[in-house]
């Protein structure tokens, strides 16, 4: 039982890592980025190419990929998102859906259908574990992922509250017209924010294939809806609730894992939309700071 609770917390950390970018992007730009999962998978492939083919050590690879993803995020913003978001609420969703399909199939074209993993790059880390009192074992990598998600959320929240860029991002998110009247280039601010998000999107947990993006997206989206996009700490809460619901259902029935998560998600949807009309704002609780 204790072991299941600990594992659910660690899994929640992984979902929080996935969901933070999605929530942040929605808060800043009011765009639900359906390519989010695919971009994470793309970043993971890039890490794999650098590490496996070019023998670049993983920490250096992460820096390189983060920079490349930042550039890709900016490019994506200028080429697709900025234009699509002029067309209302639905168009950017369709546009990012299109981007996801194109990228998924490009990845398939280039790398084939093999499942690959970053495990060989990190030595014994993927199966090493910490021993807790009471002969409980927890995987080291899961612990590091949980720490990474807390650090990532902490850094982003700190950036939002205490830096000039963070204040400009908040202003753009809360009242785009007024931000522009103050001389803030809202398009550039949003593009930088997109880049930051894309750069932090990475996966190191399990083996993946070219079409893994949609699963990552699904869990990220469920975590965001359960927690609410208002504050990134709420995203962490949502991710933990999702992981607990999945683990609980899995302990009741071996097939229950996904169903438990979906039930928690649906419960959150009904709670959030109760009394309010259907809108993404009602569903996701807008604003970088709640």
């Amino acid at each position: 039982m204790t072991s299941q609770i600990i594992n659910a917390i660690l899994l929640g950390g992984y979902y929080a890592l996935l969901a933070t970018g999605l929530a942040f992007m929605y808060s800043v730009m009011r765009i639900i980025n359906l390519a989010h999962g695919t971009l994470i998978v793309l970043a993971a492939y890039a890490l794999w190419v650098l590490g496996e083919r070019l023998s670049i050590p993983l920490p250096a690879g992460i820096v390189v990929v983060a920079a490349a993803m930042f550039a890709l995020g900016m490019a994506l913003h200028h080429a697709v998102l900025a234009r699509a978001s002029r067309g209302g609420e639905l168009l950017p969703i369709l546009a990012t859906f299109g981007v996801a399909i194109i990228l998924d199939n490009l990845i398939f074209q280039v790398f084939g259908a093999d499942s690959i993993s970053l495990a060989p790059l990190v030595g014994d880390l993927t199966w090493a574990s910490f021993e807790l009192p009471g002969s409980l074992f927890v995987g080291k990598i899961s612990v590091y992922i949980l720490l990474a998600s807390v650090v990532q959320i902490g850094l982003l929240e700190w950036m939002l509250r205490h830096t000039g860029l963070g204040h400009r991002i908040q202003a753009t998110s809360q009242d785009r017209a007024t931000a522009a009247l103050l001389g803030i280039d809202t398009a550039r601010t949003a593009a930088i924010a997109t880049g930051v998000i894309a750069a932090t999107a990475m996966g190191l947990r399990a083996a993946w294939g070219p079409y893994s993006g949609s699963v990552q997206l699904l869990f990220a989206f469920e975590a965001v809806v359960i927690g609410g996009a208002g504050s990134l700490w709420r995203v962490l809460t949502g991710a933990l609730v999702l992981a607990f619901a999945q683990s609980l259902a899995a302990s009741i029935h071996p097939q229950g894992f996904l169903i438990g998560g979906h039930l928690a998600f649906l419960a959150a949807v009904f709670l959030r939309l109760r009394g309010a009309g259907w809108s993404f704002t009602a569903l996701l609780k807008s604003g970088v700071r709640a």
Partner: protein
Amino acid sequence: MSTLDVNHIDAAHGQLKAVHGVSLNVAPGEMLFLLGANGAGKTTLLRSIAGDHRAYSGDVSLAGADISALPAHLRARAGLALVPEGRRLFPQMSVRENLTLGAATARDGPWSVDAVYDAFPNLARLDRSPAGKLSGGEQQAVAIGRALMGNPKAILLDEVSLGLSPAAVDLAYAALAKLREMGLALLVVEQDLSRALRTADALIVMCEGHVTLRAKPAETSLDALAAASFGHIEGEAA
């Protein structure tokens, strides 16, 4: 030469034409009041000048440079500030953070957070308070201070005294008088006709998107301003 030159602005909300070919200019150190009833098109005109609303024809020049083609953030960087109706502060951010956002224009000039606190001494002790917790008068002071942080050449102020106590209105106008002495061009939308008549260097009255009266305060009267607000154009003086 005028600081702000506005020529034949036409602006609409969809099918509804809100501003019909309005022209005006404001000299350095001049305070021009824009008057009129609700729905006269004053706010739409101000937003069109600032680039927050797209006019479909007409030009705006700032200190001789044509800024008609620029989006709102570049007009702000060129030195044109709008203090919007309702102040539009960022309520969860502190007073200092709101003021600092105004510096996003990256223009050189005399204004800093400390200079704003000198001009509005009641703000200094609210430095760390969230802007949303302030009184209406304090919020208006922050909104004016935030515009000043961008070191503008001209400031447009929409509904300065709306929702403020008489004392707060006096404070706001005392600050505007100092800005006038510093040589800023001020375009002020105001509902209080007698305040406008006492304070203005020049007055323009609008009704249903048209200018119905242009006058100097000495040449007109409260009655003429009121009549012009309801569309009587026989009193036109300029």
